[in-house]
């Protein structure tokens, strides 16, 4: 029995060290100071381990007001809230991103598009590394266009795919094209799907998510300032995407998947669809319905975190 106890403890230690946030950059450890410019944080002016060492869950989303609402929601769900409690923006010195923290949960905004979330992820991952965080789960929550789904459906992404439906992300590094894989953590996907079944509040599917660099032409919309194709062309493209397993379209998932897996972070993408792109291009839903839809990923992820912490 004593031997078994020791074995379990060793296993736990091994597990912890395995899941320390790591960088794929040998230069950082040799730097005297690391300035996270777009967060307005620096290793020489902030005590990262003290500020962030206990973080276990990171949730990211485009809109700063939505991520502020999320941290308040999850704080209440975890019983960390009390009357008058405020969650200040840790990155208040800049308007590039916003960051909020409640207990083990960190909520960060990332703006729109691959470059904007890419910058945020570089700095976030370095921050978690400097803080010596371990066993991090990171989830992107957001909105998307659906394909063949009722508006308000939640999609848990199994693979992020590009505009040609391939599960890869191409980055230009020093003038050379580098292609990286964009699969998300399969176990985490299943766990989130189970949480949604438990909640039984809104339709949820697992599928591929197409990540585009452009909202209008890149997603086959007819209502941009530029458009050189027809409704028929657009429908053909969207149906081909659906046949390839794509269930929603957004603008950040591919770089999110690839950067998180490169740095040892278990990652998921949970987006609600605001419309069915097979039926139209513009979001015409009443405001109050939109607000309810936008809260669905928060409710799912909030439940997931509660469940995780309840077992701990």
């Amino acid at each position, binding site marked *: 029995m004593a031997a078994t106890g020791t074995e379990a403890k060793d296993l736990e230690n091994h597990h912890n060290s395995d899941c320390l946030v790591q*960088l*794929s*950059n*040998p*230069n*950082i450890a040799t*730097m005297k*100071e*690391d*300035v996270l*410019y777009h967060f307005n944080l620096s290793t020489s002016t902030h005590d990262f381990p003290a500020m962030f060492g206990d973080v276990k869950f990171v949730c990211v989303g485009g*809109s*700063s*007001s939505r991520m502020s609402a999320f941290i308040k929601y999850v704080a209440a769900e975890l019983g960390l809230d009390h009357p008058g409690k405020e969650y200040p923006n840790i990155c208040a010195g800049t*308007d*590039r991103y916003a960051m909020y923290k409640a207990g083990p949960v960190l909520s960060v905004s990332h*703006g*729109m*598009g*691959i*470059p*904007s979330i*890419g*910058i945020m*992820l*570089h700095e976030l991952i*370095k921050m978690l*590394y400097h803080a010596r965080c371990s066993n991090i789960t990171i989830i992107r929550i957001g909105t998307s266009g659906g394909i063949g789904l009722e508006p308000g459906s939640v999609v848990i992404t199994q693979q992020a795919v590009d*505009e*040609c*439906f391939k599960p890869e992300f191409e*980055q*230009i*590094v*020093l*003038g050379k094209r580098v292609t990286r894989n964009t699969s998300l953590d399969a176990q985490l996907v299943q766990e989130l799907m189970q949480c949604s079944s438990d909640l039984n509040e809104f339709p949820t599917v697992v599928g591929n998510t197409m990540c*585009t*660099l*452009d*909202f*209008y*032409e890149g997603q*086959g919309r*007819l*209502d*941009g*300032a*530029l*458009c*050189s*194709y027809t409704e028929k*062309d657009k429908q053909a*493209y969207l149906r*081909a995407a659906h046949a390839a397993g794509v269930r929603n379209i957004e603008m950040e998932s591919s770089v999110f998947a690839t*950067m998180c897996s*490169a*740095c040892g972070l278990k990652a998921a993408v949970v987006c609600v669809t605001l419309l069915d792109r097979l039926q139209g291009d*513009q*979001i*015409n839903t009443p405001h109050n319905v939109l607000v309810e839809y936008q809260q669905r990923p928060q409710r799912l992820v909030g439940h997931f975190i509660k469940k995780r912490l309840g077992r701990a």
Partner: protein
Amino acid sequence: MASILPASNRTMRPDKNPYERERSVYVRNPHLDAMDEGILYHLDLGTKTHNLPAMFGDFVCVGGSSNRMKAFALFMHKELGLEGDGDDIEDICAGTDRYCMFKTGPVLSLSHGMGIPSISIMLHELIKLLHHARCCDVTIIRIGTSGGIGIAPGSVVITDTAVDSFFKPRFEQVILDNVVTRSTELDKELATDLFNCSREIPNFLTLIGHTMCTYDFYEGRLDGALCCFSREKKLDYLKRAYKAGVRNIEMESTVFAAMCGLCGLRAAVVCVTLLDRLESDQINLSHDVLVEYQQRPQLLISNFIKKQLGLCDQMS
């Protein structure tokens, strides 16, 4: 001889050339006019909910940071000698936190976030807005920060051509599942006019050059979370960029140049450099110096707009 105008007068343009056709802002989308309503989703505006022609005018300035664009709008309010202290300048897009928009007389100021996708969403909706408002002769200028190559920090670069990571003057757009290539030349006359304006400002180092636009801020730097190359390879790349005419690096200029060119907007990019990438990767300026550098593009644009409006005697 009397009929020949001095060269310096040409840049003032107090009188519009009567033979020059007015340049309308046009969308390149046959579907738009057939639509009953145009919702500009990320700007929280629409053709049914707002009287767009009554709202908008001649100069548009765009930049990444919402705080900076609000500061620019306040600055222009003062520089144009408009009534009041500007405290009542309100964000026209207050209903969303995606972008912000301020109007001070003929000047519209908007934020666009960071990167090609974020500015392109804003540009689609801005161009539709200017089209719905029936604006003509619009000049649009992106003001921002950048990394310099082989030039002093604090230098202002007026872009003649935006280039991609391969130093090519093009923007590749994926449309459905095809790649379409667009030109990224900016308005030459406008760049020259801006450069001429800059020469009148003391202690203001300015040059015209190429600007490289990338999709990633970090991979090309040594201080990102991911980095699989050496310092030597990075320097070799930057030196090749310099040799190809690149003087600064930022993250929006190619799509900005391509979209504005296609839609009849006279466009310019004016960015200050915060560091020389041949020397370092991290921005380590003191706060005061950083603020002063960031204001340099605004100062140039203010002088340019005042000249265009014939307000030369009010220049400080």
